[in-house]
C-alpha cells in the first residue's frame, strides 16, 4: 500500500471563485499523519460515524430478528398463524428474512461509502 513516488501528481482544478475562499494552511491529511489533535479529531469522527452506522444495523437486526422468538412466546397464536397455506414462522424464517438481509446490506454499503466520501472530501480538499 505504498503511496510515495510514482503516479501522476494531483492537480488542483478550481473556479476563480473558489480560489478566493480561505484555505487551511495544512491539508488535514498532514494533520492526521502527524497525529495532531485536529487530525485525531477527524479520525475519531470517521470511526464514530462508521461505528454508529454499523451498530445501528446491528440494533435493527437485534430488534427484528432477535424479537421474533420473544414475539412467538408472547403471542403463541402467531406460531401457527396461516399465511397463504404456510405457518407464519416458516414464511418469515425460511423465506422473507433472506431478501431482508440483502436489502439491509445494500443500504449499509451505500451509507458506509457515503461516510467515507464525506471524510475524504473533508480532509483531502486542499492537497
Amino acid at each position: 500500500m505504498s503511496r510515495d513516488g510514482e503516479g501522476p501528481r494531483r492537480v488542483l482544478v478550481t473556479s476563480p471563485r473558489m480560489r478566493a475562499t480561505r484555505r487551511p494552511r495544512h491539508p488535514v491529511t498532514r494533520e492526521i499523519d502527524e497525529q495532531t489533535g485536529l487530525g485525531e479529531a477527524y479520525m475519531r469522527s470517521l470511526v464514530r460515524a462508521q461505528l454508529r452506522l454499523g451498530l445501528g444495523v446491528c440494533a435493527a437486526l437485534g430488534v427484528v430478528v432477535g424479537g421474533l422468538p420473544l414475539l412467538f412466546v408472547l403471542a403463541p397464536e402467531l406460531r401457527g398463524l396461516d399465511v397463504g397455506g404456510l405457518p407464519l414462522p416458516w414464511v418469515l424464517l425460511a423465506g422473507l428474512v433472506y431478501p431482508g438481509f440483502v436489502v439491509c446490506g445494500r443500504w449499509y454499503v451505500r451509507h458506509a461509502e457515503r461516510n467515507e466520501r464525506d471524510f475524504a472530501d473533508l480532509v483531502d480538499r486542499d492537497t
Partner: protein
Amino acid sequence: MSTAYGLAAVSLVVAATVLVGTFGLRISRTTSDFYVASRTVSPLRNASAIGGEYLSAASFLGVAGLILAYGADMLWLPVGWTGGYLVLLVLISAPLRRSGAYTLPDFAEARLESMAVRRVTSVLVVLIGWLYLMPQLQSAGLVLRTAAGTPFWVGAVLVAVVVTINVLSGGMRSITMVQAFQYWLKLTALAVPVLFLLIAWRQDGSPGLGQDTPPAFAERTTVSVGADVEVRVDRPVPVVVHGRMDGAQHAGPVTLAAGEHRIARDTEITFPAGATVPHVSALPVRTDSEWAQPLAGREYPLYATYSLIMATFLGTMGLPHVLVRFYTNPDGRAARRTTVLVLTLLGAFYLLPALYGALGRIYTPELLMTGRTDAVVLTLPDRLVGGTLGDLLSALLTAGAVAAFLSTSSGLTVSVAGVIGQDILHGGVRSFRAATLLALFVPLGLALAARALAVADVVGLAFALAASTFCPLLVLGIWWRRLTVAGALAGLVVGGGLAGTAVVCTILGGPPGGLAGALLAQPAAWTVPAAFAVMIGVSLLTPRSTPAGVARTMVRLHTPETLQVNRGTWRPKQV
C-alpha cells in the same frame, strides 16, 4: 439408490475438483500466491468462493436433517449462518481488509503489537479449524456409505486425500477457482432435485403436516437399521423382524411392546401401514403440528434459540476460513461489496434445505427411527420420484454433498495450515506442505475415533467457540482504541476456556439433562458476553498496556484507500 450412479457422481466431482485446481496451478508461484491469490479476484468470483467454502456438509445435509427431526426451531440455523455475514459486513469487513493482514493471528499482531496475543490466536484458529473439519470428514463417511455402501472410514479418508492433493498442488489460487465452482455446483445440486420433488409431491395430492399425531408409516414399510440404535415405541405394534433385537435373534412376526427396544445393525423390521414411527431415544417425539411451530416441545426452547442466534450471528466472523477470503479483495470497498453478494448467494441457497426437511417429514419418517436424519436429502429422490430419474437426482445430490465436504475442508485446511506453517513451523512453502498434512490428519483421526454426533451440532459448537473468542477480539480491536494486550489475552483465554469446556463436555459425554445440559450444548449466550466483559474490564484496568501505535492502526483500518495518508509500516510476515 443404485451404487453405480453414486460412485460415478463421487468420481466426477473429485476429478473435476482436481482438474479445476490444477488449471489454476500455473499462476501460483510465490508464497503470497499460496495465501491470498495475489488479491486479484473479482467480487462475484470471490463471493462465489466464499459461498462455496462456507456451505459445508452441515448446510447441504445437516440442516434438512435437523429440520426433519426438530422442526421450526432449526430454521434459525441457516438464518444465523446467513445473518452472520450481515454482522460481519457492518462491523469488520472493510477494516479487516484494510489491516492488510493475511490471517487472524496477523490481525492480532498488527493491532495489538504483541506476539503473545498472536500465539494465543494461532492456537485458537487451529482448534476451531479442527473442530469444524471433524464433522465434515464424518459426514463424508456417511454420504459414501449411503451412496455407495462403502465402510464409514472410506469417505473420510478419500476426502482427506483429495483435499491434501488439491491444497498442496495449488494453494489458494486454485482453491479460489475450486470454491467458486463448488458454490454453483452445490446450488444446482440442491435446486434441481427439489423441483422434481415438489412436482411429485403435488401429484401425490400435496399432503400436509397439520395433524396432531406423530409421524406414521403411510404404507407397509420395511426399515433397515444401519447402526445399533435404541428406539422408543409408544404403543404395541405387530411387526416382522429379521435380525437381532433386544439381544435375541428374530426371523418372523413379533409384537413390539411399548417401551425401549435395542435394535442391532443390519436388522430389518417391517411395519404395517398406519403404525406410528418409533423414534430413536435421542430424538423427541412431536406431533406434526408441534413440529411446525417454533418453541414447542423442547427443554428451555427460548434460551436455546437465543444462544443459537448469538453463536451463529457472531461466530461467522470468527471462522478462520471465512476471514482469509477477505484478503483476496483488492480494497476495503470491494470487501464490502463482496460481502453483500455473499448475502445474496447464501440467501438463495438456504431457501432450499427447509423444503427437504418438510418433505422428509412426510415421506421418509423412518429416518427418525434409524437416527440418520442427516441422510434425508440423499434419500428423498429415491422415495418420492424413483426409477432412473430418482437415481440420477440422487447422484446429483451426492455430487453436491461431496462438493460440500471438499470445498469446506479445503478452505479450512488452507487457513489452518497457513497458521501452523507460519506460527508453529518455520514458514515458507515447505512448512506449508507439512502443515497441510497436520491440519487434515488430526481431525481425520478424531472423526474416525469420536462417537457419531449430528453434523450441524458439532459445527454449531465451532461457531460458539469462534463467537466467544474472535468476535470480541475483532470487534473491540477494530472499534475501541482502549483495548489492551492484557485485556485481549484475558478475553481470549476466558472466552475460549469457557466455550472450550462446554465443547469438550458435549462431545465426550453428551450434555447432561436439564438446565446444565442446555447451557453446555448451546454455550454462546453466556460465553460471548463473558468474553466481551472480561476483554473490556481487563483493558480498562490495564490502561498502560495500550499498544503504542494504536492511532496509526486506526488510520490504517478506517481511512479509504483513495486517501494518501501514512498507514504505518506494519506488513504481515512473509513466509
